[in-house]
């Protein structure tokens, strides 16, 4: 199954569970306060996910390594390379 397929199945499952419990006709035995709490749940979850995303990306952005040493080392390598290649006869 594709990732899209998995998402659709998951959403269908959760969606129907939510609909059955929160929007239920009086046939199902769930007390009214509970049903009222369940009603905005999808929206809450979406907002929570949004906050989680922002926090995660923000954290990862802040901890993104800056490779100063690697850059300096690369410059050294480049000088060494150019000198050696010139010695071996490379015409740049």
């Amino acid at each position, binding site marked *: 199954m*594709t*990732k*899209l397929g998995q998402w659709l199945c998951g959403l269908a499952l959760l969606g129907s569970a939510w609909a059955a419990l929160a929007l239920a006709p009086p046939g199902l035995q769930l007390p009214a306060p509970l049903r009222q709490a369940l009603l905005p749940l999808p929206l809450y979850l979406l907002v929570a996910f949004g906050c989680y*995303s922002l926090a*995660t*990306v923000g954290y*990862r*952005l802040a901890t*993104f*390594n*800056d*490779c*100063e040493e*690697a*850059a300096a*080392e*690369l410059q050294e*390598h*480049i000088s060494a*390379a*150019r000198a*050696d*290649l010139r010695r*071996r*006869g*490379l*015409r*740049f």
Partner: protein
Amino acid sequence: MAAGGTDKFSVLLPTYNERENLPLVVWLLVRTFQESGNNFEIIIIDDGSPDGTQEVAEQLEGIYGSDKIIVREVISVLFSSGTAYIHGMKHATGNFIVIMDADLSHHVSLYFIKQKEGNFDIVSGTRYKGNGGVHGWDLKRKLISRGANFITQVLLRPGASDLTGSFRLYRKEVLQKLMEKCVSKGYVFQMEMIVRARQLGYTIGEVPISFVDRVYGESKLGGNEIVSFLKGLLTLFATT
């Protein structure tokens, strides 16, 4: 497998207008491999560069020997990484294939090669873990990179932390199998390789790499790139 035993590494270098960087990359690769004692070859696949890249490549072949440097020119309207790798693999005699860019953005390191000792099918360089990282990136570029990677992780759950880096090591037969299965173009192709590799049950090891912004030349990350990235991502989401 003992280090420096019967393993041979074939490095595939697709090039387009890399006249400045190519000799430096080759020199670094040669030195790294000689230090590690591993048998290697470097296959340069040039896309008909107008700046004389091929001529420089042939000079390098003269300097290092044509058993170590193999130069091929491919002139193709549809040149992409995929085309370059297909052509490159035809000439590869190694049992491990290293794929990297010729623009000096990947810091060639010995550590990377040694990691294949973990017996992984694929070793992938990552900028996002360990002491991997970048140099010369402004905040905006870092934000886009992390944001795009986050979306990718959520949608594709690929089991690898960096999908768009293209510094990778593959076992030859693994790469051949993946090339048959992957259909995307450009760097989305790189992403698809990892996703499909996971689906096929291949093991993927990760090694931190330093991505130093292009020493010569311009790197572009504009609106167009972002849009095409999202399109590619959604296509993978829907098809893998």
